[in-house]
């Protein structure tokens, strides 16, 4: 029983990371109807930036905020330079550009920071809490991801800019008519998604260690989470991310073993697509023909 509770708690901790990446994916999907296959690699790159800033002697949280801001700028630049020209292109073109971006970011990461596996510091004390049920890092990272998710929610719900961004994603034509600068809203969305990715990267790196391919598995779980929750529902994506984290941990511990954890993500994806393609909280899409 103790083992079971422990599995659930560490499932929530990893689920928080999946939830953040899933949220980043859904934010871009909602605004552009593109799935950013490079989300994971961009997050890995941001994590390396954090490490560089820490190695420069900055305190952890300053480096964390620094990497958050740098990632935001990178995200905005990527949208402006690469995504803007293919905004209305067919799916094949956008997938091609995303895969190209994935390859470039991945090899740049390897090139600049080399391929050796690096340790990444955790800002939280390394000791078991509450009678050994949860480690300091698990508790801390869950807290950080939850804080970020709540901040994002408040931003979208209660600020003018957040409202404008939601409007631009929901109905670009009408928003443009009332004076929302839709192009810039998309760029801001990209920036925000990249910044959220950097948080996820920093929280997962102490657990899985830092290397250029760190996020490829995590991206898969985030896909599964986003689909499970409904790919057009931010709240659903967050819940889906947490659920996938718990399912992954329980499945890994009791059903399939650790070697097949990635296959579990595939199974979740196929199950959701077969049984309930719109996800738990997504809207069914109807289109007029």
């Amino acid at each position: 029983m103790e083992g079971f509770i422990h599995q659930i708690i560490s499932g929530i901790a990893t689920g928080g990371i999946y939830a953040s990446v899933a949220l980043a994916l859904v934010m871009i999907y909602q605004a552009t109807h593109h799935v950013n296959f490079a989300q994971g690699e961009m997050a890995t790159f941001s994590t390396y930036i954090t490490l560089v800033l820490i190695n420069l002697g900055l305190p952890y949280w300053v480096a964390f905020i620094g990497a958050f801001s740098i990632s935001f700028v990178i995200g905005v630049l990527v949208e402006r330079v690469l995504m803007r020209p293919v905004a209305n292109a067919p799916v094949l073109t956008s997938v091609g550009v995303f895969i190209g971006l994935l390859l470039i970011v991945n090899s740049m990461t390897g090139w600049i920071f080399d391929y050796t596996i690096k340790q990444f510091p955790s800002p939280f004390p390394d000791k078991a809490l509450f009678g050994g049920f949860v480690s300091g890092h698990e508790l801390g990272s869950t807290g950080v991801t939850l804080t970020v998710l709540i901040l994002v929610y408040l931003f979208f719900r209660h600020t003018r800019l957040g409202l404008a961004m939601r409007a631009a994603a929901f109905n670009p034509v009408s928003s443009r008519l009332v004076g929302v600068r839709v192009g810039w809203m998309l760029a801001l969305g990209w920036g925000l998604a990249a910044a959220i990715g950097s948080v996820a990267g920093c929280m997962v790196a102490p657990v899985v260690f830092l290397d250029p391919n760190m996020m490829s598995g995590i991206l898969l779980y985030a896909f599964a989470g986003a689909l499970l929750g409904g790919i057009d529902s931010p709240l659903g994506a967050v819940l889906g991310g947490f659920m996938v984290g718990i399912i992954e941990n329980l499945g890994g511990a009791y059903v399939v073993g650790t070697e097949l954890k990635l296959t579990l993500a595939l199974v979740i994806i196929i199950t959701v697509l077969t049984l309930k393609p719109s996800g738990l909280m997504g809207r069914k899409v109807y289109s007029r023909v």
Partner: protein
Amino acid sequence: MRTSWLIAIFVLLAAAVPTLLFSGYHLFQMTMVVVYGIAILGLAILTGINGQISLGHGAFYAIGAYTTAILMSSWDVPYWATLPVSAAVCATVGFLVGLPALRLGGLYLALTTFALAVAIPQILKHKLFEDWTGGVQGLVIDKPEAPFGLPLSADQWLYLFTLAVGVFLYALAVNLTQGRIGRAMRAVRDHPVAAEAMGINLAMLKTRTFAVSAMYTGVAGSLGAIAVAFVAPDSFSVFLSITFFVGLVAGGAASIGGTIVGGVFIEFVPNLADLVSKAAPGAVYGVILIAMMFLMPQGAGGFIASLWRRAGRPGR
């Protein structure tokens, strides 16, 4: 009509020339060009003709390769007899994977196949199948010798064998895509609603196309396994799938001839880029992908075809 036959025979003869000119490693590279060409052909039928995107065809390549390797090492089946089996296995798996994903938009298929590609090395390594797959170590298989006492080296025979299978598969693909089914596939790509109104069963046609496409790539995997004489889980990472996708885009998604260009591209460009840096092949792929998407969305095949059309009617 007669000229087109002449061209075909000429191309065939030209394709057999490397047997005489090259030897050893270079001939092996030519074999791999044909193998990759077939793999990309499978992807082209799916993506170019039918408009579905797969980022996971490396998985079918792996399944084909493993089917051949297991049949050869566990049951002593001759190498040529493994090809039909691997075709059947891959078509079945493709059908099953495509069934849930294809009912939805193109992006979902891309996602599902991407997940399949990421997961496949883990599945191949799993201890449940270890007796067959050899686990992390993989399987070593024998390189076939030339039959009937032909005066050819193993590499030469392998190249000619692969070429013969390739010619057969390309001829099949041309016939398939130019006939009624090919028109239906294009109709589904260009205007699904109109295609459905014409009486095409969208989900069925898409799933079958996916199965055919998986079959092509699976046979390529078998040929690749025979040529390399070795399979291991880590050679079928998600990067292989992305490589096929890059080859497809480089050659031109909807061009059957372009798939050979794609095969040449993914066989030789990484070798050249490796000279610069370990990270360079990925970067080169990435830059070329994005550049192609911006500048030449029809790929090399489409580009040459448009030049051909322009040259065909000069200012008339």
